[in-house]
């Protein structure tokens, strides 16, 4: 019985082998499946990589194209900026050199101003574009009279058209409301651009401006129609893209930043409107510009007096100008002199805040970037010590975040550089009084002075004696102390000569300079003279 293998063991082995085979089969199937999946994944990955690469290539191409467009734009801008700048510098130098005859000077200055304004427009457009790109372009909503703006455009473009042999038609809808609410500056800017383009691209025929108001749709519609060169479909499609005029060669021929329409389109959207174009090559173009306008008024609030044509000496008051640049100082000074306004100029923020504390100014015009202490710090200090008078920032930094910052610091507002005369004068008008040539209010304020003045004169002989004693004993310490008191006091009572001499002597004595004694003796003599004068004044 020993050779007998137990049946049960055989059976167990057989079962085990079967199970092992089954497991093996199962595992190899799993392996096969995983392999297949892996292969699919690899293929998929490769495809993904290919797709991403293609996307990157196209993004890179787009970025490069944008960069090329910007480079081309910059190169072009450089040319656009240099052209008017050349005229400004060149003509100004010629006037200075005396090359231009007396008779031609006025025309030459007109040319300089026209070119400067052109330059200013280009810079504004570049600024607008940078605001658009950073999403910071803002519009206002103000109630204003629409018609004067349209009439103003008419008076600007009619002569330009005439000079080019074109007709300019203005058609205003008879039911146009007196006042509307939207952004007058931006509406004007868009219309200037559209009409400007029309004139630029039209050699003969006419330019028309049609103005309509739809009270139901709450919309203003402006149409600018020209009989100019017109545009193809393709040109129209590129029309509103920044940095590309319909054709680059057009830039060379017609000039301009090529940004105007992009800005106009963005602005019209901000004004709840749009700009649409219809055009065919050789058949002229029609630009339709709409503005959303929620309220119309049949009467006008607008009493805008023409501040630009203000007469000489028409204001009175005093202004502190804090500005480090001599050219700007002179420019502001010319305006203030013309208007008959008293003013003082300081060259940096530190001198500025000291002058502000010392003086009685109706308004301060404060530059921002200055040496020693900038305008922002000066205003922070002034506001912290309780200075309440209006302060305006006069600055080339007019981005909206700058302006918000100025307001937070304590500026009342800002005046952009270059200075816009109209804006500048309107701010002066706000804080200064009209000059009506009457002088009455001063007297009562000086009553309280009388008592103090009497006291001061009574104490002057004592001061003089102390002063002389110090001189005789050559005691600089005592001299310094008495001079210190005198220098502050004399100014209070408008004894300016005494004040100046006392200050001079005080400064010498501060440094131990012995000349202080000689000056103090002079000062004592002057005190005597002043006392005699005061006695005569009393008796007389």
């Amino acid at each position, binding site marked *: 019985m020993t050779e007998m293998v137990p049946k049960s063991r055989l059976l167990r082995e057989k079962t085990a082998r079967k199970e092992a085979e089954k497991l093996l089969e199962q595992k190899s199937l799993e392996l096969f499946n995983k392999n297949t999946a892996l292969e699919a994944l690899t293929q998929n990955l490769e495809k993904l990589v290919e797709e991403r690469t293609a996307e990157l290539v196209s993004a890179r191409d787009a970025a490069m194209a944008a960069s090329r467009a910007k480079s081309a734009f910059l190169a072009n801008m450089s040319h656009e900026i240099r052209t008017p700048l050349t005229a400004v510098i060149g003509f100004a130098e010629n006037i200075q050199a005396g090359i231009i005859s007396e008779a031609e000077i006025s025309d030459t200055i007109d040319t300089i101003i026209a070119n400067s304004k052109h330059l200013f427009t280009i810079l504004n457009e570049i600024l607008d574009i940078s605001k658009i790109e950073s999403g910071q372009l803002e519009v206002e909503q103000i109630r204003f009279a629409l018609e004067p703006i349209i009439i103003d455009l008419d008076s600007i473009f009619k002569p330009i058209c005439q000079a080019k042999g074109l007709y300019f038609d203005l058609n205003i809808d008879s039911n146009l409301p007196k006042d509307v609410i939207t952004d007058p500056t931006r509406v004007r800017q868009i219309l200037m651009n559209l009409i400007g383009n029309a004139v630029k691209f039209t050699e003969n025929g006419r330019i028309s401006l049609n103005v309509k108001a739809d009270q139901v749709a709450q919309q203003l519609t402006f149409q600018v129609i020209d009989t100019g060169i017109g545009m193809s479909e393709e040109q129209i499609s590129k029309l509103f893209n920044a940095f590309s005029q319909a054709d680059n060669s057009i830039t060379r021929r017609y000039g301009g930043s090529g940004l105007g329409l992009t800005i106009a389109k963005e602005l019209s959207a901000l004004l709840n409107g749009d700009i649409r174009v219809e055009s065919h090559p050789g058949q002229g173009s029609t630009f339709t510009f709409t503005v959303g306008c929620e309220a119309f008024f049949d009467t006008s609030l607008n009493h805008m007096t023409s501040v630009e044509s203000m007469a000489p000496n028409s204001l009175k008051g005093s202004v502190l100008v804090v500005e480090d640049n001599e050219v700007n100082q002179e420019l502001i000074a010319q305006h203030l002199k013309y208007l008959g306004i008293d003013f003082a100029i300081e060259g940096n923020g530190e001198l500025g805040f*000291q002058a502000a504390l010392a003086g*009685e100014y109706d308004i301060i015009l404060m530059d921002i970037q200055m040496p020693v202490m900038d305008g922002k710090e000066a205003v922070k200090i002034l506001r912290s010590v*309780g200075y309440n008078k209006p302060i305006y920032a006069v600055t080339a930094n007019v981005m909206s975040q700058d302006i918000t910052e100025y307001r937070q610091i304590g500026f009342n507002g800002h005046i952009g550089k270059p200075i816009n005369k109209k804006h500048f004068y309107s701010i002066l008008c706000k804080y200064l009084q009209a000059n009506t040539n009457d002088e009455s209010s001063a007297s009562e304020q000086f009553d*309280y002075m009388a008592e103090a003045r009497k006291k*001061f004169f009574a104490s002057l002989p004592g001061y003089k004696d102390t002063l002389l004693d110090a001189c005789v004993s050559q005691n600089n310490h005592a001299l310094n102390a008495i001079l*210190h008191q005198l220098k*502050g006091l004399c*100014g209070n009572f408008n004894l300016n000569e005494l004040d100046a001499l006392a200050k001079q002597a005080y400064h010498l004595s501060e440094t131990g300079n012995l000349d202080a004694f000689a000056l103090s003796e002079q000062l004592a003599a002057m005190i005597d003279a002043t006392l005699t004068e005061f006695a005569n004044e009393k008796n007389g």
Partner: protein
Amino acid sequence: MKKTVNFLILDDVDATRELLRGLLTSVLASPKYKFEVMIYQAATAEQAMHLLKKHKISLAFLDIELPDDSGLNVLRNIKNDFPDTHSVMVSGSSSKKNVLAALEVGILGFILKPFNRVRVEEAVENFYKKTKP
């Protein structure tokens, strides 16, 4: 009845105190200020501290250049010992150092000599706004 508040003028020169007192009286004559003012005067820092202890001073005008101390020290002492007293600095020099030192402690105004009325008006106006109920 009008409420009475106490002011203090600290300055070593008689005529200067007189001048400031006159200016204050004239500014306070405006009907918009609905309080009577009693003006105390001190010629030294020591006298000033004495008056501050004795009377409840609401607004102090402090000259910086004093014979026995700096007005800036007086300002600091006031902030420590009489936190309800407001101060205005008075000085012949608005040097950045003086102004910043005073600002650090906290003031309602900085009046430069020779005086001008507008600064005094501003100081009183700022005081009025601070203390209006």
